[in-house]
């Protein structure tokens, strides 16, 4: 397992490096600075802005700064690094103490001096996604930090919906194979796969805003706000999970150990839960990786439709507003998320089915 994880990590690093590199250079290749507006700024202000965002550097240096892990700003790494004994430091009058951010190592106090947030490290590799170009007072990390919990909550609800609905429908469909129930469920599943989530969402809004106004169709904050967006977001995946479950269950139910269990006289629900389900949901587990990626993607639309201030809506807005750092940051974040979740799913898969070894596949 350890070599597998290490190999995954290596590929992950390569992938991330590729994404960061390509998107960085694409972003910088775009004509016009991020601060170009209707009104031409005073050259001094422009120079200041460029200096603030390192735009006056050569491209390679900007790239290294963005990537990290070292902060290349002269006022950062070039600031003094003062190592003092804590007791000695406290003995000095406050004026003579080194000013700046301090780190404590044992009895030593390391102080980095400098003008603007002197940090030795920075950049994507240390998790610093840089300042937002449009929301001037916010860093990308701030924005993501505010919006990601919302998106995660929505995504979890959607995944939960998808699993509950999909597994139920799939198992039901497999149990009553060939009956009308099966046919109906399969039709609904195909429909769910075919319909885009925003169409489902529009129907839901139509239904719940005007015909049965029991659930809120927009906004965020309370638990019931999550129900409709979660359902709309999860519906296509529920449909796919239902399909996978049905196929998996049918395959398992026709196997010998199920027959043995039946012959032993076990009740049907026990057979289903204890013997069939584990094998039957295996395809679903392997689908969870793509499903998560899909839910993340789908949340772009759903968040916009239901007016949810999540990361997805930020991504779309940043793309439309040409806030390149924010849009890059969200891209990187989602790459990391998808990759991590895929790896987790692969791990879970081996736990459920010991026959499968951890190989890159």
């Amino acid at each position, binding site marked *: 397992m350890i070599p597998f994880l290490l190999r995954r990590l290596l*590929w*992950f690093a*390569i*992938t991330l490096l*590729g*994404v960061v590199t390509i*998107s960085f250079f*694409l*972003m910088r*290749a*775009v*004509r*016009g600075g991020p601060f170009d507006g209707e009104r031409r700024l005073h050259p001094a202000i422009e120079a200041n802005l460029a200096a603030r965002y390192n735009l006056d550097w050569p491209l390679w240096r900007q790239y290294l700064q963005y990537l990290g892990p070292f902060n290349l700003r002269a006022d950062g790494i070039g600031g003094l690094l003062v190592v003092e004994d804590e007791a000695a430091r406290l003995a000095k009058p406050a004026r003579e103490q080194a000013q700046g951010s301090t780190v404590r190592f044992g009895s030593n106090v390391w102080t980095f001096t400098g003008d603007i947030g002197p940090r030795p490290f920075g950049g994507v590799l240390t998790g610093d996604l840089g300042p937002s170009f449009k929301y001037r007072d916010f860093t990308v990390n701030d924005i993501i930090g505010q919006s990601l919990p919302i998106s995660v909550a929505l995504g979890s609800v959607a995944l939960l919906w998808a699993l509950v609905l999909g597994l139920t429908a799939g198992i039901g469909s497999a149990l009553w194979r060939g009956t009308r129930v099966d046919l109906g469920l399969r039709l609904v599943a*195909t*429909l769910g*796969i*075919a*319909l*885009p989530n*925003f*169409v489902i*969402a*529009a*129907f839901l*809004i*139509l239904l719940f*805003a*005007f015909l049965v106004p029991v659930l809120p169709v927009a906004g965020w904050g309370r638990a019931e706000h999550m129900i409709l967006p979660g359902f709309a977001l999860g519906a296509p995946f529920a449909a796919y999970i239902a*399909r*996978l479950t*049905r*196929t998996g269950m*049918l395959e398992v139910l026709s196997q010998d150990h199920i027959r043995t269990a039946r012959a032993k006289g076990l009740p049907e629900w026990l057979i289903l839960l204890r013997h069939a389900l584990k094998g039957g949901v295996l*395809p679903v587990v392997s689908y969870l990786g793509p499903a998560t*990626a899909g839910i*993340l*993607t789908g949340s*772009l*639309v759903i968040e*916009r*439709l239901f007016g949810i201030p999540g990361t997805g809506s930020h*991504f*779309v807005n940043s*793309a*439309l507003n*040409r806030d390149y750092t924010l*849009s*890059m940051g*969200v*891209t990187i974040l*989602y*790459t990391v998320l*998808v*990759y991590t979740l*895929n790896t987790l799913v692969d791990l879970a898969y081996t736990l459920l089915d010991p026959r499968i070894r951890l190989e*890159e596949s």
Partner: protein
Amino acid sequence: MRTKDQSTASAHAELSPREQRARDDQRLAQARQHRGQSLSQDAWRRLRRNRGAFWALVFLALFALASFTAPLLPLASPTALMLESEPQPPPWPLGANPRLSETAQARAGFGAGATRGYRALADDGWQHRTFVDVELTMPLGALEPRPDEAIAALVARVASREPRVFVRAGDTPGKFVQRHALPQWSDDRARTDWMPTGRRAAIEAALVLAEGTALANVSLAAPHAGGLIQSVEARPYPGGLEVVATFAGSANAELDAVPRRYRLPWRAAGSAEVMAIDVDGVRLASGAVRGPDGEWPALAAELALEPALEMRFAGRTLAFEGPLTHFEARGPNGAAATLERRRAVVDELSPVAAHDLGARVARALATEGRGKLAALAHTDGIWDLGAFDTTLLNLRGRIFGLWQSGPLLGTDAKGRDLLARIVWGSRISIQVSLVATLCSLAIGVTWGALAGLLGGRVDNTMMRIVDILYSVPFIFIVIFLITLLNEYRTELADHGIGYMTIFYLVIGAIYWLTMARVVRGQVLALKNQEFVEAARTLGASTPRILFAHLVPNVLSIVIVYLTLTIPAVMLFEAFLSFLGLGVEPPRVSWGLLAVDATDSISAVVVYWWAIVFPSLAMGSALLALNVLGDGLRDALDPKLRGKD
């Protein structure tokens, strides 16, 4: 299935030898019939048996046909706006829309749908001209009432406002082609067309007949010494010509400020010279008019010094001759601005709207026995329909003429016909999905087949690349890419690369991964089989083995994945358009329809039809594609039947 087997088995026991032999013969005949069937024949047979997939195929074929021939269908314009600011529900099931009652249509006199078009025409909010070339079947003079007047009146009726009709000579003797420019948008008043400034301006021939005779020769002189003619505009009004001129640089600034308007009515006899004298005593315009062989018509000058701010002048179609995109604005001042404004206007209009109007006029002409539609010229800039679609549009004019369907599915929030928008929107969706799918096909099959065939380290590297790309959330990259490419749109356009092309290619380039994997797997399974060995022994080169032996064998699975890729790409297009990164107005796609629909949701009133019908169209098409994909998979690879 089982019951059938059982019944045949039980029947088998009771058969007499003779019956048995007969049945064996029958089976043999059946087997013979299927023997030698190619893969595709076999697959087609299976597909036909699968009822769901078969009907999905039929549905999709009809759908694609409708979408392909959308310009031919007598639909309303997908972009023409209506006067009503409020969307209209579909006229069923609650009975006809009161706004579109039969009587109203009858009063308009143009059959079903014309009332709608009439309104669309009257208040579109945009400036628009469309040219209708009308081929007259009889000599102009022989008709009573005079066709030019009748056409002008007709156009006036169609446009429900003062017409701006520009009449042009036909090229073929004996046939007259009149060119009309119709006003279509609401704010096309107070518009100036610039001419070279000077002391004098002469405008030839408002109407040149086939005989080559000028109807009017209008010359214009500036009122005062030092004065300049700033603009002239001419148009026939029903029964004559109207000339509007503005002047500059004269001593009298007030005089300059007021555009001068002169009416020169046609008279049906002889020839005449006319002169118009302004109230200021300044000779402004003179017209020399001769009829063909001196028969007709004459021109009488009639001063109409209305203090209108409208500016018109008699004469040749000044700026409206050529496409508006080629309009050249010249003038002492404000010329550039005028040009800009025209450009902006040009960017907004659509030939479909123009076509609607043209078709209505043509139909009206035909009903009144005056002539038939010869050609429609659209003066649009942005939505280039291409030769094929223009041909279809013209064909539509010949077949259906004026008739067009009413708003069968209601109208959207801006009052545009929903049915037309759905049909026209499907064109983009289908185009995107086909182009992108072909892209993915080309890349994916080549990549996968090469990897599978070459094997070893190459295979490993190529597939690792695919793995890496798989783990990237591509949609984010694509959105990022499209945002960046938006910056370079004009540069790319200079190199002949349209935004849509990029859009297609970017989408296509991300959908090849699964295809590559699938093809590689299949090639790996196939490449050690005897027929490949045999080909290799015979000295076939690697490309030959690849394309002549392996690719045909993986074709079935490729087709299956193609049918599954198409809906995925369609969804993706809708998704991007929904986010505002895909197709842009005035083009329409299903994604944009969904945006319109969700935007029209408000707390007060809901336009359910704007949500339901586009969703139904999209849903049914995608559903059919999915069903067809499943059916094809079963048909092409029976081993996979029932699996997902």
